[in-house]
């Protein structure tokens, strides 16, 4: 009887062992001429990521010997986690959303700060009389939560308001329905997404599209509580220990930034690339609006595209620590500029304008529903 039991136990252990062995099956890191690299986006394909799609589709990655797979983001996908777990070689993430998991122990670092400005707004109807954060006192203030509310909270603090008691916070869907219905006085909006959506909506009073004059907009860049957004993140340990990975990182950043330079100078081509990439959530007109606004978040890049602006980084950390997002300021390993610097040196040598000092926003035609 006992012997049979032991056999059973052995059989069970064998099964477990086989399962464990098959799980631990590591990828072979044998690179050929063209190296495979994957990029985890923070959200679904849209013009927010046009530079990477352009670099892929126009062969910029191929030019530097890379074959890049772009992985969509989703509701429950955290790019920093995917990167840390080895699910992707690089990831696009907002700075606070990279720094928080980093503080919790993920070994990642920001290697290129692509967006130089924040795209988050607080939008209200002009007749609500909300011109600045001080006017939000006593109002119904919509926000998405999930870490999107900190610029708002810091903005309220900056004028002496307590977000928990001086305003009524309302959880807002990722669209502008609540503002249009009057359920909230001020709605959170990305300048390139939800703000565009509201302008793509018919005003029931006029039968025409809503106009920018119908709204007043609080821009956290102007208030001084903006936090840095889209950046390219990489595995920090691997950069130190694996010379080949660091080399790939330089080439990846170089080709990605070339994509962004291309999208600055070839607006419509990049919109078409995004629309063709995989069905984006907003139509072609919406993507055109977004491309224009994304360009404005990147350009001009006074220190060179992808290079961290120390003052804005300090402001981001200041907001993050005073709002309790981060327990303390991150160590010096949170970002590095050497990779971006090398990349833009290569780009400049090839004759690309990496500053975009004479960049100007275009006028984009707004169409109903973004189509």
């Amino acid at each position, binding site marked *: 009887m006992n012997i049979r039991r032991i056999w059973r136990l052995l059989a069970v252990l064998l099964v477990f062992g086989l399962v464990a062995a*098959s*799980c631990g*099956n590591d*990828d072979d890191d044998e690179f050929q001429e063209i190296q495979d690299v*994957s990029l985890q986006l923070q959200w*679904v394909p849209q013009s927010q990521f046009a530079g990477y799609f352009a670099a892929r589709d126009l062969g910029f990655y191929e030019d530097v010997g890379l074959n890049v797979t772009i*992985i*969509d*983001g*989703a*509701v*429950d*996908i*955290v790019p920093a986690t*995917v990167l840390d*777990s*080895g*699910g992707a070689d690089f990831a696009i993430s907002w700075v606070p959303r990279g720094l928080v998991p980093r503080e919790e122990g993920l070994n990642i670092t920001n290697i290129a700060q692509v967006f130089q400005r924040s795209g988050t707004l607080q939008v209200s109807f002009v007749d609500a009389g909300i011109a600045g954060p001080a006017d939000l006192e006593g109002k119904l203030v919509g926000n998405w939560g999930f870490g999107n509310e900190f610029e708002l909270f810091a903005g309220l603090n900056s004028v002496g308001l307590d977000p928990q008691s001086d305003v009524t916070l309302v959880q807002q*869907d*990722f*669209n*502008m*329905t609540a503002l*249009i*219905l*009057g359920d909230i006085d001020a709605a959170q909006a990305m300048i390139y997404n939800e703000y565009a*959506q*509201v302008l*793509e*909506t018919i005003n029931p009073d006029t039968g025409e599209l809503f106009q920018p004059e119908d709204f007043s907009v609080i821009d956290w860049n102007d208030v001084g509580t903006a936090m840095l957004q889209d950046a390219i993140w990489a595995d920090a340990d691997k950069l130190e220990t694996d010379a080949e990975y660091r080399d790939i990182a330089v080439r990846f950043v170089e080709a990605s930034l070339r994509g962004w330079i291309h999208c600055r100078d070839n607006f419509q081509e990049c919109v078409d690339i995004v*629309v063709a990439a*995989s*069905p984006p*959530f*907003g*139509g*072609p007109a919406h993507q055109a609006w977004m491309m224009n606004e994304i360009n404005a978040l990147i350009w001009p890049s006074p220190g060179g595209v992808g290079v961290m602006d120390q003052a804005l980084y300090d402001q981001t950390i200041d907001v993050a620590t005073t709002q309790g997002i981060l327990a303390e300021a991150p160590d010096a390993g949170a970002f590095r500029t050497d990779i971006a610097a090398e990349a833009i040196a290569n780009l400049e040598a090839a004759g690309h304008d990496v500053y975009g000092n004479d960049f100007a926003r275009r006028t984009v035609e707004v169409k*109903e*529903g*973004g*189509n």
Partner: protein
Amino acid sequence: MPATDTMAETEDPLVRQHRLRQQAAHELRRDATVRIIRQTVTFVVFMGLLAALYAGYKEVGQAIDDRQHDWPVVGSVLPRTDDLTMPPIGKIIGQFGETPGGEDQIYVLILLDEALFTLREAFAGFMVGLVIGMAIALALAQWRRLEQGLLPFVIASQTIPLIAIAPIIVIWGRKNFDVFPWEWQDWMSVSIIATYLTFFPVAVNGLRGLQSPRPENQELMESYAANWSQTLWRLRLPASLPYLFAALKIAATASIVGAIVGEISSGVVGGLGRRIWREAFNYTTGPDRLFASVLGAAALGIFVYLVVTGLERLVVGRQDKGATA
């Protein structure tokens, strides 16, 4: 003397029995047709009533102007009736025949494409879940001690929220599932989520079904000196079928839900979940499309339920006839 009586008297008892049986089968078929028609009519009438309720409530809300006043129920406890919150029924239905901007076919065909994508994910997951669930049920039925040890884990597995495991599975899939001879694709990870929802009801109900034969049936098989597999195929599996199909009805709809949730939370491109997510994002500029896409998901759920019910009639129904013959 009436002719039929003479016939009955002269008829061979065996022939008569055969005739009666055929008559009964014919009536059964007719009854089934009548039942299907009746069910369809009831369903359509019920849907019509629901639509009328929706439209009627909207009418009332608009008439009393629920946006301007604080009414006790309309527009406060129940939703408001403006076109953004409650798009008119006609617009929702009409949406199916419209071609949305940026697309090249009418919406109902788009939904059909997405539904097929989701159905493939759900079906693959469902089949794998069926096999795993039955394997667990068989193992548990065979070794009682295993039942005590394993069942708590099987139950605990269902308390882990889907949104927690869905992204993990998708990321794992991309990284680690290259052991398979075919190329692992994202939709297969979504299938795993459907499997996860399917195997549980199958395992639990399958176990009950396998244990359902009465002791005297079991003893009869023993008296025939039937071995384990003979008892399984002749007695326990057939006896488990009604239980199993009850589970499969739950599992079929659950696998659709699992596939939809998986698509949304893990960013798989394609399917009804992706479509619903997208329409929710664009709600401000096209609320009727979200309603239409949700109706599409409901239709898919009803479809798979009907398929399983049909299979049950086919399989269990034939079983009954076989048993009485």
